[in-house]
């Protein structure tokens, strides 16, 4: 199928974003901490959008850190599941974010379908960006991926000289594409060449030996895990920043007149994660919990879904207080 593309010149970008913010419920990265966070963008906020840094994590949008799943009456005569009722257009995802969503899809869209997640996937339009300058911790190419999106986006933006190539990825992206039409011009072959050059350059920067057969991390002995976990302080940063970590817990909350069930992220590195009745803990040792985290991604998920639950984004490496480098663990399994 012929790709549908347009060119958005640099001098029109601010105006175009302004229009998007007026036309759609727009979310985009705004500088807050080291990594920008997604925030609702109105006309005044447009100039604070940062596109040259990457997002902390996009998971929050689809699996919020805390999410109401049900509201119900104390006698359970009224039970109301809660769903995402609005819609959103999200700007600033990277190829790794899109891939992460595809990995989450396998878990949450398989039977029984998680309708809470599904609704968000259906109602959120994804605008991604090519990575021109990869970060130090990135290793997507070593897992066989590319630093630019090939699929999974509704609209993708590729920075080139004097502007961006806007490419339509799905019918869902069409309204946004159309809203941009008044600012865009035709894409020339030269622009596409530039995009290709940029993409090649980014891939070259990410060069490194391929990491393959990673399900073999299962064979790393207990002593190796003890070594790797020596500097782990169980802060959970790696899990909270990870775009593919999805483990959650459920709990009840008493509201004024009613009760609610909520879901929240629960990092598997925490001591009480697997604790069962009478305080019995099947995984009491930190090193076995760290092992479980890595094995979940590279061995268990792989067995179940045929691919690794890691995008090589390296956010866990940047976030780790103890400087634990996932790449070193994976290299040990080579």
């Amino acid at each position, binding site marked *: 199928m012929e790709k549908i593309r347009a060119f958005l010149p640099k001098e029109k970008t601010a105006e175009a974003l302004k229009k998007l913010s007026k036309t759609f419920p727009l979310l985009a990265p705004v500088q807050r901490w080291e990594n920008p966070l997604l925030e609702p963008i109105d006309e005044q906020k447009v100039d604070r959008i940062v596109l040259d840094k990457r997002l902390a994590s996009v998971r929050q949008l689809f699996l919020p850190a805390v999410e109401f799943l049900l509201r119900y009456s104390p006698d359970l*005569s009224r039970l109301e599941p809660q769903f995402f009722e609005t819609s959103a257009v999200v700007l600033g995802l990277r190829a790794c974010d899109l891939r992460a969503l595809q990995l989450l899809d396998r878990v949450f869209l398989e039977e029984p379908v*998680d309708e809470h997640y599904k609704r968000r996937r259906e109602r959120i339009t994804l605008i991604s960006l090519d990575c021109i300058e990869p970060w130090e911790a990135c290793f997507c190419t070593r897992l066989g991926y590319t630093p630019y999106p090939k699929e999974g986006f509704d609209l993708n933006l590729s920075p080139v000289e004097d502007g961006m190539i806007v490419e339509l990825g799905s019918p869902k992206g069409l309204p946004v594409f159309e809203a941009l039409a008044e600012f865009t011009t035709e894409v020339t072959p030269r622009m596409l060449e530039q995009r290709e050059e940029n993409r090649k350059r980014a891939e070259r920067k990410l060069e490194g030996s391929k990491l393959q057969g990673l399900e073999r991390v299962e064979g790393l002995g207990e002593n190796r895990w003890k070594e790797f976990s020596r500097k782990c302080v169980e802060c959970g940063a790696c899990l909270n920043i990870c775009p593919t970590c999805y*483990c959650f817990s459920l709990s009840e909350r008493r509201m004024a007149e009613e009760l609610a069930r909520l879901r929240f992220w629960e990092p598997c590195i925490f001591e009480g994660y697997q604790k069962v*009745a*009478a305080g019995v803990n099947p995984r009491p040792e930190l090193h076995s919990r760290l092992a479980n985290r890595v094995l979940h991604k590279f061995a268990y998920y792989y067995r179940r879904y045929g691919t690794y639950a890691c995008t090589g984004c390296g956010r866990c490496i940047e976030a780790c207080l103890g400087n634990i480098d996932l790449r070193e663990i994976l290299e040990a399994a080579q």
Partner: protein
Amino acid sequence: MSSPYLPQRAEILEVVEETPNIKTFVLRPERRLEFKPGQFVELTVPGVGEAPFAIASPPFQEQLEITIMKTYDPSLGRHGSLTSAVHRMQAGEKVGIRGPYGNSYPVEASVGKDVLIVGGGIGLSTLRSFLLTLLHEREKYGKIILFYGARTPADLAFRREYERWRQQGAEVHLTVDVGTAGWTGNVGVVTILFDRVKLDFKKEIAVVCGPPIMIRFAVEKLLQVGYKPENIYVSLERKMRCGVGKCGHCNIGHYYVCKDGPIFSYQQVKHIPEWW
């Protein structure tokens, strides 16, 4: 649109006190539950929480029974909040249930075979569903033997029923860790029954549920007396939060206890160091 985390309402019809800390809750769900022995439900105590519990009744029985022990966590020095709350509930009150979840005991594989059921403490709850299923069509199976151990005579669950099980054609052997006045039966952990009881049945199918340490020793014993790893079935406990293979809490290696279990053959899990 529905949610996989949405419970249905069930009325507590009756609360039966089994032991000082074990109660059976007889439930009537709004929609009848079709289940197999060995499966579990997620039980909601409104406003308190939700936790997985085995179904104690057999599928052919009209009423649904869930047998629950009020747990005590020595590391926290307190009883479990959910099991305490459910123990305070009375007939007429409402709970939520989701399920049934998980796989089931080897009922088909037991046809024509001698079946040994080994239980410890509250572990007998899920085994009871299996036992009653076998006894319901007694003639289809070979010998049916129950080895059951509890901490003290007062802690033996389903005490009122042992005689009936025997009449229906099960051999029932009991032991307690600590005897009390009036107890003339076996004293010692459940594995001592392997030495005390004449094992004059074919080592064909064995099914085990109980506290982790008991499961481990029982499996060792079963292997010793000649059971094959693929014929030993263990029902395992993990923190099944969602029950539907998503939340990640209940994994044992690459298995999810909620989906691939809770019943595993020893052959399936023996290579996984954390199986117990």
